[in-house]
């Protein structure tokens, strides 16, 4: 069944704050094989002018993907996650990277839902800011729900 296009334009209430931990950043950096000092060593990060270890540029997906559970897990929308593959991804930073100690709040919006060649395409936008309201990064994800095998 195609995804309900009336979900487009819908915005959800802000998520509970996600506290970015130093060890989580290190764990993520290790998982992508990134051993650059600013991801692991607080002193190295401070020497570059950051408050604490820096998260790699794709790290916000950890926070935004959990947040978009609001959309993905909505039974009314009815996404079958096993049939979902990632189409596009974009991050735009407001002026600084995510660093350990950030407490991040996400606001999710469905920007678009379309159907093409039997597949459903859903584009979500997640605006990520600190609990005190400083914009940090915006993430756009286009997900493709593959059509059922004929």
């Amino acid at each position, binding site marked *: 069944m195609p995804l309900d296009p009336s979900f487009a334009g819908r915005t959800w209430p802000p998520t509970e704050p996600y506290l970015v931990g130093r060890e989580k950043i290190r764990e993520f950096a290790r*998982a992508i*094989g990134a051993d650059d000092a600013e991801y692991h060593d607080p002193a190295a990060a401070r020497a570059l002018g950051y408050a604490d270890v820096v998260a790699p*540029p794709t790290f916000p997906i950890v926070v935004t993907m959990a947040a978009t559970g609001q959309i993905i897990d909505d039974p009314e929308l009815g996404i079958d996650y096993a049939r979902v*593959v*990632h189409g*596009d991804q*974009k991050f735009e*930073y407001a002026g600084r990277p995510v660093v350990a100690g950030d407490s991040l709040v996400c606001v999710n919006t469905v920007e678009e839902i379309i159907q093409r060649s039997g597949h459903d395409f859903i584009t979500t936008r997640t605006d990520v800011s600190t609990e005190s309201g400083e914009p940090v990064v915006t993430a756009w994800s286009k997900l493709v729900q593959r059509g059922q095998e004929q």
Partner: protein
Amino acid sequence: MNGELPPQTYRVTRTDLIRYAGASGDFNVIHWSDRLASKVGLPGVIAHGMFTMALAGRAVTTWAGDGGTVVQFSVRFSRPVPVPDTDEGTEVEVSGVVKEVTDDGLTRIAITATCHGEKVLTLATATFRKR
């Protein structure tokens, strides 16, 4: 600053996908079960698109010299990266070309990422601020 990122080759194995699943929280079955991946029409387990994007990010940030300077990063996942259940797994190669350096200190890079010679990312660009 040179106009090209030297090509980087990254090996990707099932172990890497398991580790990435745990670190990122993306436990989609298509990244660890051949049985369930095949069921939805995939050739078998495929890498997380975000894992491939992270490898492209590594190539950029290592070259930029500071992982915190990225202001924009976007990709299209043009084809999946199948990761066979072997010791060797597969390889992703990432290279890039500087497309633009603006007066206000931004460098925009067009990224190429391939697996077995085929592009796995298209429309892949990263912009970072010069320190």
